[in-house]
């Protein structure tokens, strides 16, 4: 039998696996339903729950042990449970309080007092392949519980995490609905892929794939930050691991939770751009400065003109969300099921910027016997999105709105113009009245009337279906030994549908043939993990051992796409693939992805003595398909230790430091998030040429790049020292210091062009260091009827590139802007991708200043400058201004990130204020197109240099710009990126129980939420939070919306 399976291993396993996976999920679903049949009954018991101060506690969960029966206390602490019988046990539990069990006697009116749990460190945290009591954890793990996430109006889980934990920097990639975010755990770990590993209920999902997850299905998020915690995920853990656990059902009555919100979004900020007459005056000034004519003779007559931002922004973008969840269970089975859907319009050109999602989840666990337990999780989401291009200088509504002149009207209503060229003889777009949308004669390139622009793509969309699930069997043959086998899978389908009509947006944005396209792709990945863990207490020695083994396969993917050209139709409505077209009217293709495989063995030992002396050791061995035979496998060890000093006998009982744990660890993790076959020299096709009378295309093949057979794992070693303390009986504090050293960073080596390679080879080229400190503080106190809690975190990270290869000083960075070339540079001794350009030293106010700005030999450094030009700093002191005078001007990555959450509860009201922000970064403000002379300006241009003494910071205007005031990348383009944002403010009201009990509900809460209400920043673009591969590059970033929402929550 073993032989048989072995031969199948490489052939049919994937297919079989899907079947096994689906079968087990379907099976568990039915088992779950059967488990929900309830049992007998006798009488009704009432009571109240209060804290030690006599204050009623609302929302306390009361469960009749080993049954599905239960209730929650209402706002006044009252509860009623029917159908109980004498001798059954009631279990009272409430967050922050010690659970209590009461055996039902004859009394039917219970007054229960719950004691506040001062040992809140006794929570359990997920640590990867298991859980651990928080008090004995020796690594740096931050966690966020569902309570902190519920009723947050976020579409994606990264946003929910933003500002909640220390050591994690998160910036939205765009304000477009459904957009992903850039997530960095403890700085930039490597040059390539810095996305953390997301593990959802044991399923490894890449950062792009977590969009399927519904935020309110999440029970907890744990961020593993130090190597001592991360090493259990070995070769893929270097950039951090984020573990997400979805909600499971609890024993007790079925609870139903419905949450809905609806609201409107609007831009939080609009740029201040020149109006038409201001624009006319500035254009005149620029033209005259270069000896040109006055362009607009009567600027006043131009009036205000068109406000293109008005055209693109929607102040009433609608968003709404509905979610319903159902959970419960008995002593055999528990389940959690949810269904939700949400719709969101973007604030920029909502017609083509929309997102909607529908999701379903079913999680269940079943006890088959005392020994066997099975369970599953399954989430499905369907997403549909329309989006505009964002953060690009090359067009799109945002860039167009900023750069288009305010003189061109949105719609041409003058019949003389509308009947003239180019409107009369080109396929221009028109409004509902048949008037053409205005075409600018001043600003061209990719800048086009946004209303016409979107007509190209209205109705085009992308879609995806994601199914992510996991099924496990757990065997407990003897006490303390748990053997678990789990299989996980993720199956996605995605695609897009689009039609582009013939159009004429302006002279160079013309499409002469309509086209209809469709793309469909499928991806599958699975992993199988087997673990055995054994825990044992012998006296005060408490130890547990985990051994495990896993196989992971990703990117079993393929896709097809096709485009039909020149369909015999005139409108989008007619577009269909059912039209017959000839072969030369089609372009189609198909592709197959390269599988990524990892096999692993791992083990963890945890030990503590009297919960006082703690130790954890981890070792993992991973093999990855992305490496050559010389270095196929890597071993990743870690160890960490802790000491709970406050448990020592000598620790005096005191009111200042109630508990104190000191911990530290060291470990090594890796990354294989590189391209496939980096270790091989491949010969690729497509290097074609055409020969012959008839023009036959021949396919050419050639090697891509020189090979590097020694390519190996990059390794990140991290040391972490920290402590956790509880102070003054009400303050929790966690502090960590870390030093993270990445060696042999895998990077496409930017080799000289004379090598003749197509593409770049990979190499273990560079080293980098991150050093940082993190502080998390929590405070929670009850003042009579006022409940107050505040939690905050602040993180500091310092990044430094320490090595780039022998003799290699720097490599060009990952960001550029038009003809400026590189904006950032990676150089030894500097932070990764630091801004690199010219330094300005004020503006020459008069000719004397120019002639007296001399070098050592007395000749002027900028002889060709004129008053009003920038004085460039001669950084290298060679007496002339050249490329070598560029220098480091700051980093796009913040030094500090912070978040602060404040909660108040007073009687029926609750208030949440959540703020977050960053400090210490620069943003490249590149909103204006350099190459479009007539592009509009922000009103900051009005304070330009116009004569001696006018300004020392904004140079004179000139189209020719011989001094490169605008065309050179200098600190002129950099702005402070510091901001403090009131991200969420929520005010809720819980209805009194008298009212809601009439419909049998347990809780009904209404709330209003404001999102992004206020952002304090000096940044002059739309939004200082700019994610992306190199963060902080603004070329027309889609800003995050300000939203107001009304929400409603009902629990049964």
């Amino acid at each position, binding site marked *: 039998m073993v032989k048989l399976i072995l031969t199948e291993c490489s052939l049919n396993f994937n297919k079989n696996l899907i079947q096994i996976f689906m079968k087990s999920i379907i099976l568990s679903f039915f088992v779950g339903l059967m488990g929900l049949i309830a049992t007998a009954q006798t009488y009704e018991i009432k009571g109240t729950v209060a804290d030690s101060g006599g204050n009623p506690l609302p929302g306390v969960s009361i469960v009749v042990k080993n049954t599905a029966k239960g209730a929650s206390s209402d706002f006044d602490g009252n509860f009623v449970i029917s159908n109980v019988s004498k001798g059954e046990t009631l279990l009272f539990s409430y967050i922050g309080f010690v659970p209590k069990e009461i055996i039902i006697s004859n009394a039917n009116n219970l007054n229960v007092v719950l004691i506040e749990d001062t040992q809140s460190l006794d929570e359990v945290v997920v640590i990867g392949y298991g859980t651990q009591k928080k008090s004995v954890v020796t690594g740096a793990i931050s966690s966020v519980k569902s309570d902190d996430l519920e009723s947050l109006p976020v579409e994606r889980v990264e946003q929910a995490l933003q500002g909640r934990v220390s050591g994690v920097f998160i910036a939205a990639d765009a304000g477009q609905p459904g957009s992903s975010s850039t997530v960095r755990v403890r700085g930039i770990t490597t040059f390539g892929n810095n996305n953390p590993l997301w593990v959802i209920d044991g399923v490894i999902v890449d950062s792009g794939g977590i969009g399927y997850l519904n935020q309110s299905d999440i029970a907890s998020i744990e961020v593993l930050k130090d190597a001592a915690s991360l090493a259990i995920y070995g070769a893929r853990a270097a950039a951090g691991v984020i573990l997400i656990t979805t909600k499971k059902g609890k024993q007790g009555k079925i609870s139903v939770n419905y949450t809905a919100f609806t609201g409107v979004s609007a831009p939080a900020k609009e740029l201040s751009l020149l109006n038409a007459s201001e624009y006319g005056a500035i254009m005149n000034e620029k033209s005259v400065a270069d000896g040109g004519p006055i362009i607009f003779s009567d600027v006043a007559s131009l009036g205000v003109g068109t406000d293109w931002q008005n055209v693109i922004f929607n102040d009433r973008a609608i968003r709404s969300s509905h979610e319903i969840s159902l959970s419960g269970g008995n002593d055999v089975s528990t389940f959690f099921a949810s269904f939700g859907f949400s719709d969101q319009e973007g604030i920029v050109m909502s017609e083509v910027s929309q997102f909607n999602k529908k999701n379903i989840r079913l999680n269940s666990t079943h006890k088959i016997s005392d020994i066997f337990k099975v369970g599953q999780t399954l989430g499905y989401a369907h997403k549909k999105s329309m989006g505009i291009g964002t953060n690009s200088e090359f067009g799109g509504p945002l860039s167009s709105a900023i750069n288009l002149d305010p003189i061109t009207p949105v719609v041409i209503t003058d019949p003389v113009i509308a009947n003239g060229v180019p409107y009369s003889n080109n396929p221009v777009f028109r409004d509902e009245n048949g008037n053409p949308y205005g075409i600018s004669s001043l600003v061209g390139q990719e800048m086009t009337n946004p209303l016409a622009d979107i007509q190209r793509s209205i109705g085009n969309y992308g879609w995806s279906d994601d199914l992510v699930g996991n099924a496990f069997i757990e065997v407990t043959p003897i006490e303390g030994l748990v053997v678990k086998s789990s299989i996980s899978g993720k199956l996605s389908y995605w695609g897009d549908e689009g039609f582009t009509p013939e159009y004429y947006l302006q002279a160079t944005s*013309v499409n002469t043939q309509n086209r209809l396209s469709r793309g469909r792709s499928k991806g599958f990945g699975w992993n199988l993990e087997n673990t055995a863990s054994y825990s044992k207490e012998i006296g005060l020695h408490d130890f547990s051992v985990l051994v495990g083994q896993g196989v992971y396969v990703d990117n079993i993917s393929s896709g097809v796409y096709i485009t039909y050209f020149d369909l015999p139709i005139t409108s989008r409505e007619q577009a269909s693939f059912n039209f017959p077209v000839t072969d030369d009217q089609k372009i189609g293709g198909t592709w197959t992805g390269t599988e990524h495989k990892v*096999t692993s063995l791992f083990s963890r030992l945890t030990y503590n003595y009297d919960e006082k002396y703690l130790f954890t050791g981890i070792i993992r061995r991973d093999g990855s*398909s992305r490496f050559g035979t010389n270095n196929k496998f890597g071993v990743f060890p870690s160890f960490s230790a802790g000491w709970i000093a406050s448990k020592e006998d000598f620790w005096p009982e005191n009111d200042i430091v109630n508990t104190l744990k000191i911990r530290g660890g060291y470990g090594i993790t890796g990354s294989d998030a590189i391209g496939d076959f980096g270790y091989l*020299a491949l010969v690729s*096709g497509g290097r074609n040429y055409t020969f012959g009378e008839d023009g036959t295309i021949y396919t050419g093949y050639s090697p891509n790049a020189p090979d590097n057979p020694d390519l190996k794992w990059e390794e990140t070693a991290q040391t972490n020292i920290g402590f956790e303390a509880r102070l003054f009986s009400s303050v929790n504090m966690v502090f960590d210091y870390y030093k993270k050293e990445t060696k042999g960073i895998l990077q496409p080596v930017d080799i000289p062009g004379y090598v003749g390679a197509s593409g770049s080879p990979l190499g273990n080229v560079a080293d980098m260091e991150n050093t940082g400190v993190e502080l998390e503080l929590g405070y929670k106190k009850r003042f009579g009827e006022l409940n107050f809690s505040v939690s905050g975190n602040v993180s500091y990270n310092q990044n430094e590139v320490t090595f780039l290869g022998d003799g290699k000083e720097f490599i060009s960075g990952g960001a550029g802007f038009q003809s400026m070339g590189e904006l950032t540079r990676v150089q030894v001794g500097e932070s990764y991708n630091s801004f690199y350009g010219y330094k300005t030293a004020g503006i020459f106010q008069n000719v004397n200043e120019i002639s007296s700005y001399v070098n050592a030999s007395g000749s002027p450094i900028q002889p060709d400058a004129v008053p009003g030009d920038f004085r460039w700093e001669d950084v290298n002191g060679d007496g002339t201004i050249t490329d070598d005078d560029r220098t480091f001007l700051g980093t796009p990555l913040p030094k500090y990130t912070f978040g602060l959450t404040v909660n108040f509860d007073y009687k029926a009201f609750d208030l949440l204020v959540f703020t977050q922000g960053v400090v210490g970064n620069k943003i490249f403000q590149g909103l204006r197109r350099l190459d479009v002379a007539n592009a509009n300006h922000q009103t900051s241009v009005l304070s330009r240099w116009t004569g001696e003494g006018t300004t020392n910071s904004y140079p004179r205007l000139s189209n020719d710009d011989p001094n490169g005031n605008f065309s050179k990348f200098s600190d002129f383009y950099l702005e402070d990126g510091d901001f403090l944002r009131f991200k969420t403010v929520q005010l809720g009201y819980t209805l009194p129980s008298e009212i809601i009990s009439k419909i049998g509900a347990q809780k009904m809460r209404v709330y209003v939420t404001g999102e992004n209400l206020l952002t304090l920043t000096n940044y002059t673009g739309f939004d200082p939070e700019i994610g992306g591969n190199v963060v902080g590059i603004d070329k027309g970033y889609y800003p995050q919306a300000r939203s107001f929402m009304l929400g409603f929550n009902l629990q049964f």
Partner: protein
Amino acid sequence: MNINKYKFPILAIAILATIFSCSEDYLEVSPDGQFLSSSYYTNQDEAFSGLVAAYDFMRKNSGGFENMVTMMNAGSDDHYAGGGNASDGAGIQSFSNYTINSIELPGSFWTDFYRGIFRSNMMILKLPDVPMDEGLKTRYMAESKALRAYYHFNLVRLFKNVPLFTEPIDPADMYNVVQASPEDVYAQIEADLLEAIPNLPGVLSSEELGRISKGAAQAILGKVYLAQHKNSLAAAQFAEVNGTPGSTSQYGYKLLDSFDDLWMIDNKFNTESVLEVVHTNESLAGWGNAYNDDAEGNMVSTMVGPRGFIDLDVNDNVPAYSSGWSFNPVLPELYDLLKDDPRFEATILDLKTLSDEGKVQYSPGYQDTGYFLNKFAPTVAEEHTGAGDMWLNHRQNSYAIRLADTYLLEAEALGGNGARAQALLDAVRSRVGLPSIPVSMDAILEERRLELAGEGHRWFDLVRNGKAAAKLSDRGFVAGKHEIFPIPYKELENTQLVQNPNY
């Protein structure tokens, strides 16, 4: 404990564990759709594919946004850069107004030729061991060497101080490369061509057209000699190519009777074509692969076409031009020289007059003169329809070298005097019905300007004859600096290369 009770789960786990420790082979993934270099170049077909890849950069003459024709025209005294605005194609603009620097110079003028050299070197390295027809192998080797020479020639005449490669570089040495002396580079080019010429076919079969023939290699060698002012050697090579002026040469070359026929798109590989760059509209290029190795269209057509062209009078004889990007507007000086020349109509599209007459309309681009390069101007009739993007799929071939070019080069190599030089000049002129004029270096240079206008030769002619500074100083040309390009900035990063003087 009762072991039977747990037999199944333990067995199941044991089996699963066995499967997934399957061995290291499990981690091997094969590169679908690609080959390993260690197992390539093992048969005739693979050798041919390698050769095709080496030919790929011949297209640099007129393919891609950064092509030789548009670039070299922009730097000459016959054209401006043009385009949409002052920074549309910043590299082309700054070459045209001589503000070119190492950052703005499009790096592809360097890297594309080196890619061609790398691929040629792979062939030269691998071919000896490929089991294949020996005759073909000899020819492939000759073509590879000719290509390596052609690419090196373009590099050395554009950049002068360039590294020389006769084999693929060992990655370990890649940062230790230094520039070779121009003399050494030229010596290698000459050696490559001289080795190639005997083994190249004199006549190509119809499906091979576009590959390097004996005549093409000799024409290249003639140009190589002439660039070094080895005039008698150059003249000898050109004479092999040209034969008796006006007659059919040994390789079948002959001036076309009608100059206009040179620019008929279907008249590919005519008898005047010595080295032709092949384009097709069948690669169906789209913006996603616009300038990739597999996009085979002619971009000069799109680049020189007028912006927003509208034919207002369909009854005139003006063809409906397809819109382009208005690069390389023709300077009035060239217009004046050509306006009474029989070659005018084929060379210059005078939209200025036509639009003054109300027959057409167009959107003036940057540096608009109203005169466009008609040799490549795209027409609606020739617009690519169907799949792919219209702008990227023009199918007109371009002449890297044509017979009128080699006639005049030979005359130049002969020092601009003597009966043969006179005959060569006369042949070029009489073909278009112009009378004989006394031959001289100036007459030859002037004839080249008119005959070859807009084909990318003028700038090289000026530099080779030491007239660039005189003709281009009003543009900003600085003698002793602008005769060559700056070494691209990226090539200097961490390497041993030295920037060209005065950049």
